[in-house]
């Protein structure tokens, strides 16, 4: 049995981080999700999913020096790990292979 695939929201989250480059911080990731996927997600679900994916090893974070605008609080910057990338590729492969030969449906939209 193969490993299960990333969930839809997890994929979106990882892609949004990748789009943010090296500088993906939480507010930016949320904005990316909203702009590109039209996805408004609750703050709590957003953070717990990030933490869970970190626990699974799909992403990691570092903190940057503290700025005043944040009330002296640290800011986390997220990066997708090699394993996270592999998971994204697997998901993409599976989807493309399923879409293969179904171009007529794609064209319809």
């Amino acid at each position, binding site marked *: 049995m193969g490993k299960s695939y990333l969930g839809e*929201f997890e994929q979106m989250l990882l892609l949004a981080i990748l789009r943010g480059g090296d500088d993906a*911080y*939480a*507010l930016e990731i949320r904005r990316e999700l909203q702009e590109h996927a039209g996805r408004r997600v*609750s*703050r*709590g*679900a957003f*953070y*717990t*999913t990030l*933490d*869970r994916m970190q626990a699974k090893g799909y992403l990691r974070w570092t*903190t940057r020096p503290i*700025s*005043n*605008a*944040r*009330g002296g*609080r*640290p*800011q*986390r910057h997220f990066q997708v790990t090699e394993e996270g990338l592999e998971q994204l590729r697997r998901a993409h492969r599976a989807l493309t292979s399923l879409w293969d030969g179904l171009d007529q449906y794609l064209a319809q939209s």
Partner: protein
Amino acid sequence: MSRAGKCSPAPPRAAERLLEAALPRGQVGSSIIGDLHQEYQERGAQSGRLRLIAWYWLQALALAWHYSRRVSPHGIPLNDKGHEPMTSLISDLRYGVRMLVKTPLVSVIATLTIAMGIALTVHTFSIVYGSVMRGLPLPDDDRLMQILQNDTEAGFQGMSLGIHDYLDFRDQSDSFEELGTYYWGTVNLAGDDQPPERYEGAFVSANALSLLGVPALLGRTFVAGEDSSDAEPSIVIGYAVWRNRFGGDPNIVGRTLRINGETGTVLGVMPEGFRFPFNHEVWIPHRAEVDGAADRGGGRFETFGRLRTDVSVEAATAEISAITERIRSEFPEEMAGIESYISLFEHRYMPPQITAAVWVQLVAVFGVLMIACANVANLLLARASVRGREVAIRSALGASRARVIRQLLIEALVLGIVGGTIGLIAAKIGVDRFSAALVDIQKPYWIDIRVDAPVVFFSIAVTLLAVALAGTLPALRASGCGVSTILQDESRGTSLRMGRLSGVLVIGEIAISVALLITAGLMIKSIINVNRVDLGFRTDNILTARVGLFEVDYPARTDRESFFISLLDRLRSQPGIDKAALTSHVPGRGSMRLLTSIEGEDYASTSDYPVVAATIVSSGFFDAYDVPILQGRDFRPEEARSDSDAVVIVNESFVRRFLPDDNPLGQLVKAGRVDSDDPWMRVVGVAADMHIGGGVGGLGSDRNNPEQYYVPFGAFDTRFSSIVLRTPGTPQEATSVMRSTVTDLDSNMPIYEVATMERAMEQATWAFRVFGQLFATLGVAALFLASVGLYGVMSFSVSLRRTELGIRMALGAQARDLLGTVMRKGAWQLAIGIVLGLGIGVILSRPLSAITFGVETTDLSVYAAIVATITVTGLLATLLPARKATQVDPNDALRIE
């Protein structure tokens, strides 16, 4: 990125605090709050301040809510689908079980401790509930009263009433719905196809059964007039008699039987379980002759009735006293010194002394339960402090204080459920055995000791109480300490505070067990005294039974005398019987107590007369029991006739008290006042003392006067007698010879109350044995639990002080010094506990005086023995961990830190 101006105000502080509490600790939580802060600042440029604050609060609340739901008890965030905690209770439970399995030894000890506490509590509660709380199975039994009298002149208490007094109360009192009466007897049934049999019977007034409010199962109860002296004989039989003797015959009503020698009719069958007033099997009308003469003599009747709902006990007492005064004004001589009062019916057969002892026991057992809970609390405390780091991490990961408390409570609950179940099962086994031990003991019919619904509910309540007691303190303690304190320094912060709490619990445990051991010690000493008491007579190889003559068959006194004389003659000639005698009262089963005069003494008033124990005996009685006649002679067979000379045999104590100066032989004694018509009886012999007893516990109060005299069958007219047979072999083997000898004389006469003398004495002393064993069990259980508790706490505190002890060792402290340091703490706890316990013990043991034997409740030897026991046990429990302390290797101890 910070487009917001620096002047923007900071987010509401309270909301930030909420977030700090709810979010995971550390950089994760902090960065989330930072993100929110940043967004707040960015929005601040565009929105009004109020809207901004509202927005921030909404975000904070949503986040706090999300994290409080989405974090497992371990503090680990859960997935979005949130199926790990099914609203977290089950997961808490599962986690609790897992934690208990992880520390099996602690869990097993804690479970067994709880089981032991609950088993003892439930067992004792079953006894208390079954004997004093459940009450009579009669409607409104709390209003069922009896009227009793004291004779202040003669010194008699709790007397039943003369028939005339009963009639006066019945006619003049308004306080009762109705007043009925009864007296005890035995009823012989014959005239069917079965051999005659004698049953415990109540001789009742016609209204006695109907006023109780229990209708007959078949037929009817008595109606007015059926108790008059000229009424036809009739009987109402109990369920057991109906089933066993008559095979449940549906046509039993209307059948004629020989009832105590007369032909009478069965009127009805009472329902199962009805054995009013004590443990009676059949009821017949008393058919007493009530003449209207001025003479208020006659038999005595137990008088009872249900108090009217609108009448208080005080009002009824006042009315009864007023009626007594009215009777006294009419019959000043007969009523001299008589006081009347009312009391609850069940107290007639469940004396307040026994009730008090039973309640003391329940208090005692709650003491044991508290010790058990304190032990479990200590175990959980110890574990909680070991788990301090775990709890702190969980708090840091976002588990709220309530969550942590709940988790620890659930662990205690799991312990409680398992322990409670084991305890209930153990209690059930104990109760069954206890009931089996009581099965042939004469006790009121409503006393039914078993594990039933109320007892089970009680056990559940007790279990929850135990869980609350054992779990709450550790949970509050463990969760209440500051997270940073524990994380920074595990061994100081929590542990010291928990140590102090444990210390208090241990002192409490010691105090309770000292108190319980005192009650146990008094009861054990009583048992020893009872077993050691020199009865003054043999109990081995003796068989006893009782016979009763019917007035119809033996109408004249001489008929009865002849019967007893020929019975004795025949018994003596039977093979397999060494010695035979008759007596009104078998030793150990009490005696008559009579107002007595000694010739030559002056008695100014009734209260000056001594009340002395008296027994009717045949010739050969002392010989059968191997009691020496110290002076003079035994009765002669012909003295069983009323026309012979009036003679009496007194015992040594009697001589010592009443005839100390003269030769007792030839002195004159009278059963009654000096001026009464009773004959003066000449002392013909002095017998050695016999412990004949009576009263609560059978052997009676050790403070009872041992003076006693014996009169021959000729001196008193009696229809009842006990047979005493000394046999060469097993006494039971003589039963059939005894029975056939009696039926040869009178085919309608059964023997009853057949028992060996040893069994009779056991029955007479059951209270000491039963209560003694129970109190002893409780005391030993308390001692055991307290020792385990002390040991546990001491070894735990030593293990916490390893570092400190190690440093001391490294600095040159001697093992002896360390031993002293550790022991001192234990010794202090022990000393405080003992002092407190002695105080509680004195109070707790006071109500026991009624059931102790030969022991004052302030018996110094018992107190000293208990103090010695608990000191030795306590010091041992301290010494073992203390020795461990001296074996600490400084290197190891410091490395751990």
